[in-house]
């Protein structure tokens, strides 16, 4: 870790300890993070907006608490970045879209409030695929974000800005959202830990909706311990979200073992068959990862997810259907962009929406509107919901045989910008291994598992609903034993692309 650039940051927990021990001030750390974010904006374009005044003001407040010997929150003084779909009172929240380019939220998302209440310093809002629709961060209305391991490549999406900035170690922690893989795939691409919690574990209030029955916010962090800390902070029941579940949040961070004795890890036969047909180096990497888990004491068992292959089709009916309804509100009447012109209010709606949304968003709105329309609702939407039931029960059966599942997070390492942008289906296939868990509503994470041609690849760990602790424990033992992320420095750090 010591070889990392001087202004770059170690883990969130290390920073927190340094602040507690008064070795470094929150303000100094925040300044460094802001400076670094600015220097790396050229090569990475990870941020839509930085919030220097707000961040420094809050950092000074934390330093005041430290000086006064007041109790400090879990994330006191730790700089974090949040995906630009979390509402932050008084600040612009664009969701990566032209249609919300000038929207200033009059309220804050529950998770953002929880982060700040725990002392986290939000330094900026990160870039993303428009309305979280995409797997490469190229669908942002503003600019594509780059991968810190190779700036000619994508960081993954839709939480690409968050993944990129944590991958570059500008901040140790970012918030992302995952609907079909939007935390796990970019985490894999940027060599960081990305956690999609159980649906209902984390409040969705203030998180701009893409597909309401699938969206979940989660941590994207430098290591597992940070992920555990952040999840502990943001998880829990929220009376503002009817779908948030009132289940006790365990102290994840204090339950992170170093070995896996007695843990049964399921390996998905169908996924292995699929990965074996692709990139041989990638298949070998995952084989090695399973061996490492076994070496740590875990017992590997074969499990089956016979309906997982239908995940993609199921997802691309349900998510667009919900999105077509969720995005109806962007019409230029109350907030956001309006395109003026002749005619009545509907002419204004049409102009505004046609100009305000990008290609992918339009595609999904059309697809979803179709799936819900008279005559097709049963054949598409209801049928997809039924297959969703089958996918969910596959996992129930699998978890009767194992404690967690280990499987690929991605089917390839980060690809070059533009490589898939003309081919939506190829892009959709990027989420092949992550979609089934989203449909089942169960927790899953991606953890650095090594490199293929010097590009990072993540391993996915999946647990039954509300058993994030199990999943983090396995990930932690694996991380400690392998040290994949700590072993290398992202390329953007060695290119001399920024000032010191």
């Amino acid at each position: 870790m010591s070889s990392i650039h001087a202004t770059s940051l170690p883990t969130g927990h290390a920073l927190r300890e340094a602040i507690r021990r008064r070795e470094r001030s929150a303000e100094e750390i925040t300044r460094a993070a802001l400076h670094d974010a600015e220097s790396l904006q050229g090569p990475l374009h990870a941020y839509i907006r930085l919030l220097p005044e707000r961040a420094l003001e809050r950092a000074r407040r934390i330093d005041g608490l430290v000086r006064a010997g007041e109790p400090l929150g879990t994330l006191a003084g730790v700089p974090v970045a949040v995906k630009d779909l979390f509402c932050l009172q008084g600040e612009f929240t664009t969701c990566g879209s032209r249609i919300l380019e000038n929207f200033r939220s009059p309220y804050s998302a529950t998770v953002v409030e929880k982060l700040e209440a725990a002392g986290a310093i939000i330094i900026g809002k990160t870039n993303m695929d428009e309305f979280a629709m995409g797997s490469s961060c190229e669908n942002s209305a503003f600019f594509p974000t780059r991968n810190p391991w190779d700036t000619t490549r994508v960081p993954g999406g839709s939480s690409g800005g968050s993944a990129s900035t944590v991958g570059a170690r500008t901040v140790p922690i970012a918030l992302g959202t995952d609907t079909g893989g939007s935390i796990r795939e970019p985490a894999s691409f940027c060599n960081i830990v990305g956690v999609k919690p159980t649906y209902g574990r984390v409040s969705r209030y203030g998180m701009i909706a893409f597909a309401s029955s699938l969206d979940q916010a989660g941590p994207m962090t430098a290591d597992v311990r940070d992920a555990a800390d952040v999840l502990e902070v943001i998880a829990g029941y929220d009376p503002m979200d009817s779908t948030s579940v009132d289940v006790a949040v365990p102290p994840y961070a204090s339950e992170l073992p170093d070995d896996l004795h007695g843990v049964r890890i399921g390996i998905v036969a169908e996924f292995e068959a699929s990965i074996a047909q692709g990139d041989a180096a990638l298949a070998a990497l995952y084989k090695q990862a399973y061996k490492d888990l076994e070496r740590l004491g875990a017992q590997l068992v074969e499990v089956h997810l016979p309906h997982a292959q239908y995940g993609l089709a199921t997802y691309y009916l349900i998510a667009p259907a919900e999105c077509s309804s969720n995005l109806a509100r962007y019409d230029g009447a109350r907030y956001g962009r309006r395109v003026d012109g002749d005619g009545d209010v509907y002419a204004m709606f049409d102009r505004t929406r046609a100009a305000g949304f990008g290609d992918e968003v339009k595609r999904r709105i059309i697809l979803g509107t179709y799936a819900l329309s008279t005559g097709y609702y049963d054949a598409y939407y209801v049928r997809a919901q039924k297959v969703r039931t089958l996918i969910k029960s596959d996992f129930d059966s699998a978890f009767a045989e194992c404690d967690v599942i280990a499987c690929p997070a991605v089917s390839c390492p980060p690809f070059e910008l533009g490589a898939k942008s003309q081919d939506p289906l190829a892009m959709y296939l990027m989420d092949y291994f992550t979609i089934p868990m989203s449909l089942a509503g169960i927790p899953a994470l991606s953890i650095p598992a090594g490199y293929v041609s010097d590009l990072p690849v993540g391993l996915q760990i999946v647990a039954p609903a509300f058993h994030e602790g199990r999943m983090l424990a396995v990930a932690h033992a694996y991380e400690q034993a392998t040290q994949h992320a700590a072993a290398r420095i992202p390329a953007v750090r060695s290119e001399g692309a920024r000032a010191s």
Partner: protein
Amino acid sequence: MADVPMDINQVSLLARLPLTEEEAQRFAGQFSRLFEFIADLQRLDVSAVHATAQVIPLHNAFREDEIRPSLDREVALENAPDSEGGYFKTPRILD
């Protein structure tokens, strides 16, 4: 290529999302590939399967009938593209 029985112009009218001719053509082509996957679903026997609208086994999530502060009107209208006399303002409704 799978047949997509979609009247894309009718759907775009419902969605209030006018498409250019180029967009309509391009989307239709892209959808047809996706619908090859979707066609697989049609082959599954789901007659005995219930539909999952929501994965969490929750019901009766209520709030009590209590008043919470509303926004100040200036704040409510701050984001409005146009407003007048405390109202949101839009082009006329012809209906």
